[in-house]
């Protein structure tokens, strides 16, 4: 046993003597580089020289060559068991992989140094690349022994190790280029819960959490986050945003014009200081307006609404789908023939619901007729009852139409005495009472309908009492 080990060692020594001195030097240098503290990498967070950056940007291009070759390697070795010519080719591929790896590292360094990128992921990626090159170098050496049959395990083990290093390094590189959440962003929710618990933002209902953080997360964090900290600035939390970067604070509460962040995103896109840099998608005017208004309002982490900014919630999210009415289609059609009022599909998707349309029979459509439609209430999302003959009595019926999003009562005899009954319509976003005799007291009695965004009181006593009713309501949202 001992003799065997000694024999192997002797054999290795013999082999080592045959290894050119340059290789030994390269291995030593590589090991030194891997264990150097990151400040020795000359990365200072500043960008340097156009030429360096220009060449450096070929790194993502060049780097795929060694990746492909390294992945090819085990295939060639395995297939070589049957076709010796392939195994012969593997040796050549291994050497090319090594060479291209060194070239990639060179370009990679130019990219990092030139663009001034720094941060944990960048150094990890860099170390990974060097380790990978070292492993390839060792692979090259032990492959001779493997071929000679002296070290049967060393080469396969090293090759597996190389592949693992490759995967890890490539992931680090991908995180730099596309952001650390690139793989997980569109992961299906159940998988996400297990694999990638999402970052917890304090005050999830706040304006910052709902409207500022998502902008920073999609547009800024790729360069100002855990993977990279350009300019010493991180934007992946409220605290980090307010702490600023090495040039000081980037947000000046109540003073948008002096907030560096806003200045940078509103520069002309061709300006060298424009953010997001490097041709990443710029902020939309809407996003800038949100940040501007939020800063103006004090840039608080907790505030829920910001004056002057009205953000329409996503329609699909806000409105739950209604049940499928397909089973009732026969009845729906019968209803149309007997009543003259129509039930019309909102769209080809049944869960979008039905519209109750009375325009052809408006003059004769009364409370009793409406009551006959109550059985379809779960599917009706919009009731067009303008200029019909319905009265206050119908509001009781309508309170059962729980899925109503829009209700047209314009030009009817509704007085609003029983308007409070509509408070039960939790999905109602649109209510048109124009041309009715509704008073402002009646309107006040049901203003707590949470989703109501558009209330029309044109040509009513209520409008005369407060001409800006619609405006004040919509701006308060």
């Amino acid at each position, binding site marked *: 046993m001992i003799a065997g080990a000694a024999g192997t060692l002797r054999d290795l020594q013999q082999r080592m003597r045959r290894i050119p001195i340059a290789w030994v030097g390269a291995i030593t240098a590589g090991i030194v580089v891997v264990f150097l503290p990151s400040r020795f990498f000359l990365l200072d967070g500043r960008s340097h020289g156009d030429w360096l950056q220009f060449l450096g940007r070929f790194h993502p291009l060049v780097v795929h060559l060694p990746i492909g070759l390294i992945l090819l390697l085990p295939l060639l070795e395995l297939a070589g068991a049957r076709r010796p010519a392939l195994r012969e080719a593997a040796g050549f591929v291994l050497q090319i992989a090594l060479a291209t790896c060194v070239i990639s590292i060179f370009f990679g360094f130019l990219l990092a140094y030139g663009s001034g990128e720094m941060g944990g992921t960048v150094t990890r990626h860099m170390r990974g690349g060097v380790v990978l090159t070292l492993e390839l170098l060792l692979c090259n050496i032990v492959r001779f022994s493997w071929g000679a049959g002296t070290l049967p395990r060393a080469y396969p083990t090293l090759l597996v190790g190389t592949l693992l290093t490759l995967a890890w390094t490539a992931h680090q590189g991908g995180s730099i280029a596309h952001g650390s959440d690139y793989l997980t962003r569109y992961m299906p929710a159940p998988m996400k819960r297990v694999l990638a618990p999402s970052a917890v933002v304090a005050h999830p209902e706040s304006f910052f959490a709902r409207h500022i953080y998502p902008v920073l997360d999609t547009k800024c964090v790729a360069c100002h986050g855990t993977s990279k900290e350009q300019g010493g600035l991180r934007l992946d939390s409220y605290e980090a945003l307010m702490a600023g970067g090495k040039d000081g604070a980037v947000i000046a509460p109540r003073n948008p014009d002096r907030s560096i962040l806003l200045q940078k995103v509103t520069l002309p896109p061709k300006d060298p200081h424009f953010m997001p840099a490097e041709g990443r998608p710029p902020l939309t*005017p809407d996003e800038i307006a949100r940040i501007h208004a939020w800063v103006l309002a004090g840039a608080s982490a907790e505030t829920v609404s910001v004056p002057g900014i009205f953000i*329409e919630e996503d*329609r699909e999210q806000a409105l739950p789908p209604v049940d499928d009415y*397909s*089973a009732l*289609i*026969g009845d*729906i*059609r019968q209803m*149309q*023939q007997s009543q003259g009022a*129509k*039930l*019309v*599909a*909102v*769209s*080809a*998707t049944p869960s*979008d619901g039905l519209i109750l*349309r009375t*325009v*052809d029979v408006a003059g004769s459509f009364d409370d009793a007729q409406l009551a006959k439609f109550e059985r379809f209430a779960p599917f009706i999302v919009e009731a067009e009852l*303008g*200029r019909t003959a319905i009265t206050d009595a119908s509001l009781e019926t309508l309170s059962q139409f729980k899925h109503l999003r*829009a209700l*047209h009562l*314009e030009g009817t005899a509704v007085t609003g005495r029983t308007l409070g009954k509509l408070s039960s319509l939790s999905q109602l976003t*649109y209510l*048109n009472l*124009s041309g009715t005799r509704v008073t402002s007291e009646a309107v006040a009695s049901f203003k707590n309908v949470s989703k109501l965004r*558009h209330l*029309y009181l*044109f*040509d009513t006593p209520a409008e005369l009492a407060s001409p800006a009713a*619609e405006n004040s309501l919509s701006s308060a949202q």
Partner: protein
Amino acid sequence: MKQHRFCSDCEDQTSPMDLSISGDLKREWSACETRRRFLGRSGKVLGWAALASLFGEAIPRGIAFAADGKVFSAPGRNSLGLPHFAPKAKRAIYLFMSGAPPQMDLLDYKPNLAAEYDKDMPDSVRGNQQLTGMTAGQARFPIAPTHWPFGQHGQTGTWVSNLLPYTARMVDDLTIIKSTNTDAINHEPAIMLINTGNMNAGKPCLGAWLAYGLGSMNDNLPTFIVLQTKTNPKENNQPVSSRLWSSGFLSSEFSGVGLRSAGDPVLYLDDPAGVDRNVRRKMLDAVEEINRQTLADVGDPETNSRIAQYEMAFRMQSSVPELTDLSKEPQSTWDLYGPDAKEPGTFAYNCLLARRMAERGVRFTQIYKRGWDVHDNVVGMLPVLCQETDRGCYALVTDLKRRGLLDDTLVIWAGEFGRTVYSQGGLSQDNYGRDHHPRCFTTWMTGAGVRPGITYGETDEYSYNVVKDPVHVRDFNATILHCLGINHDKFTYRFQGLDQKLTSPVPASVVQGLLA
């Protein structure tokens, strides 16, 4: 006996099924043949017309339900399944500025041009563009800055010419598109292109596509109505023809119904003296019977359209007088629309009618205002044109907004192209002219589906080329269809072996930046 060309009884002739023609045409043929057999050999009983009338009235247009619970298509329709998705807009009103308004005199503010007065436009701006015959021969192309000052308006601070004081009041509601562009440089091809998606006549227009795809919202008024503004003889009025509201290869019941701008809105709508409503009804029943026999004999679906149109006309005898009776409009209406609105045929009057039609369930209203073709007298004519239209536009949008109609109505303002920054003919301090310009023009939309208070796209400093976010008229139309719940790429009609659509043949895309 005369043999009909579709008759399949002539056994000695070569069958089309044996010919080397495309499978689509064969299917089309076999569909005709089946109908012939069905109609010809069932003893002239009901036939399609009768079927249509049995189903017809009760079926809500767009998506119709059959008794067996499956989505059912009325004869003459494919299974459209429209709208494709829940629409933001149920209806649209299109204010068409025929003749092409000069964008740099109204909404495309170019303050730098004042210093360029009478200088030659650099050749690099025009490139190798071929001009119209009206200015191609000009020795030079002197820049004509706008004659009128601009001001900033609204919270958005949008620049608007002083010629449009009313439009300026509503800029925060508008989606202004400065980068609209088209392919054609002359009126007829350009106006056909923006309306029908093709420079050549024969394709259905936007309104016809909407009528076909979405159907009517009411039984008593046409789905698609065209209002023409009466012309001002001092203006340079380019002709506007019914080709622009034609249904093309779609059934003619989808074409626009024009209301006249003077006198009776619909001619011969009143019953003649001595003919009462019952007599008229009996006459129509008899005509319908004859039409159905013709349909059974010939099998032309256009006969069906004719039957439907007679019925529509009968119902319009009561619905149109009610529509055009403005006596019950409150004073606030006249305060808003101005005195012009009391005179039938004016732009303001048509805008008021458009609002009334929106209330009554007309799907698509298109108002044509001619006279914008200001070739040689911009300073003289532009104030007149703006005075005629500015208040009506503002009144319509404001009226729709205060009545809660703008939440489900899309309003569109556009011409067929723009005008040149260089002067056509002589340039003086007092006057200048402007030629046709297809490379950029300014349009606006407002209401359901579009994002208010934005300006989309940019032109260069001469308002000559689009430099950012171009919106071709096909993209413009695709966006309009999107607002109405239609995917323009899926909304096709097979004709002449092609899946025809409003935005074909060059690919178009919905302009996401315009959407709310």
